[in-house]
């Protein structure tokens, strides 16, 4: 168990460190970005992208960091981490033939699966919360004021969104036996959904609409999470975990 926890910690730390480095670079670039917004708006292709940059610029440093950290860093890196961590959860054991020794441990299948689900989920979301908490401190280097509270709340929203992606991939892992294919499949779906988000006529069909700049801006304006988005996402995650548990209960070595 200690070895497993260590492995989860190493993964979380590695991905959290990359996320933080991306955030540092983005925050330090803020003054140049602020001074060049009109030129950037002229260069951005497409209405959706243009709208994103305009929304970002209208909210100042807050909008800029929301885009850089949540929409770019967390969606891309966090999404990839969610796909990779979840894909190997059960399918990885099946693929290398170690499912039998795992199932033979003197624990219930519910416990075995729950441990793995929670460990992977924490590895995905803790770095997001931790890096988000560092944003006010980083912004002070570019002479911008911010408090931790709204950033923490926004990180919970992003975490819930990524938890849904993680849970969906976890469900497929509980059903499948090829972790690499599952991870690439999940990444492909994310890329396609992201592409869909950028198409004006189809953007409403993309799940990235559930965690885009407008959503985060609303959270900052209200100072609270939006239950209309958070609760369905959390329910979806729970449903996926329940489905994974059903599938796992039927697995044979």
């Amino acid at each position: 168990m200690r070895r497993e926890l260590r492995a989860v910690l190493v993964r979380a730390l590695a991905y959290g460190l990359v996320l933080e480095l991306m955030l540092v670079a983005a925050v330090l670039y803020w003054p140049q970005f602020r001074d060049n917004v009109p030129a950037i708006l002229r260069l951005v292709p497409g209405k959706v992208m243009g709208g994103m940059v305009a929304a970002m610029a209208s909210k100042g440093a807050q909008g800029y960091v929301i885009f850089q950290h949540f929409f770019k860093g967390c969606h891309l890196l966090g999404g990839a981490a969610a796909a990779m961590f979840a894909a190997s959860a059960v399918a990885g054991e099946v693929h290398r033939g170690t499912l039998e020794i795992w199932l033979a441990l003197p624990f219930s299948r519910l416990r075995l699966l729950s441990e793995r689900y929670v460990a992977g989920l924490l590895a995905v979301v803790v770095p997001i919360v931790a890096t988000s908490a560092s944003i006010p401190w980083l912004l002070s280097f570019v002479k911008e004021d911010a408090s931790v509270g709204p950033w923490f709340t926004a990180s919970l929203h992003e975490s819930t969104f990524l938890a849904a992606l993680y849970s969906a991939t976890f469900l497929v892992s509980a059903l499948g036996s090829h972790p690499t294919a599952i991870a690439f499949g999940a990444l492909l779906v994310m890329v396609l959904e992201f592409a869909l988000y950028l198409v004006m006529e189809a953007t409403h069909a993309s799940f990235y609409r559930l965690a885009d700049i407008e959503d985060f801006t609303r959270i900052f304006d209200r100072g609270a999470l939006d239950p209309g988005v958070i609760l369905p996402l959390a329910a979806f995650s729970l449903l996926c975990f329940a489905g994974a548990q059903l599938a796992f209960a039927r697995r044979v070595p």
Partner: protein
Amino acid sequence: METPRAPNDRRIVARGLTRRFGDKVALHPTDLDLGPGRIIGLLGPNGSGKSTLLRSLLGLVRPDAGSASIDGVRLRGDGTAVRRRVTYAPGEIALHGERTGRDQLDWLLRGRGPDARRKATAIAADFALPLAKRVRTYSHGMKRQLLLAAALAPDVGVRILDEATEGLDPTRRGEVLQRLAEDAARGTTILLSSHHLSEVDRACDALVFLADGRKIAEDSAAAVAERARRLVRMTFGDEAETAQVAARLATFPGAQLRVDGTRVSVRLDAGDPHAFLASVLSSPGLPRPRAIALGELSLAELYREVYGVEGC
């Protein structure tokens, strides 16, 4: 039918245990009442249902029908309560190659306590396993021994070991069987599966035979050895000689005959096989056999000659 139970009875009991995979019946309704404090060999060729039976007893494969109890605990749900009272070494060797031997042992012994870890480390040291090295550098036999160290360490009443001696060299196999005998002498019940009779028969007190998912026999090891001892096999020069001998031997009382090409196998219901052989060899006009085998029986031969099951 309910399985009889008593707490800590160190018995393995099954009543009508059945498992299907789709249309295929992997395990026909099977009854067992094994132990306590004995080593029981579960014998059968590949695909005979041994692993399915063992996995069903542990709850790794959910039985379609029947009931089972181990060490007085009834198999329910996913078998967690049963697995707390039994250790298991699977037949298929697959480990986490990226872990060191020590990490893998710790992982296999999750939920078993620090004493089990200390004992497993000592057993692994006896087996000369390099616990600091990664498991992917281990040979097949070393991986088998690592699984055995984890299965032999916890203080439980029942151990289920699937193909425990497969892949071990004869010296190590002897050490493992000796260790099992000492464990059984302390009261532990050990169910040991194999598809090689000669690998396990000397260590076992009783033998259970499976074929095509059915239990076809359950005998004491001594009774099986006695049956094997009464089997005489003779090989002749050609089929004409074989037919001549077969015709004569068919008149011998208490001799069951089987002819396979130039080979005649005779199973004696009773009596001394040496005396029978002497009388055959002294019979006038009978051709002399090219080769004689007495009491040497592979598992396939035992199935064919003693239990009348083909294709093993």
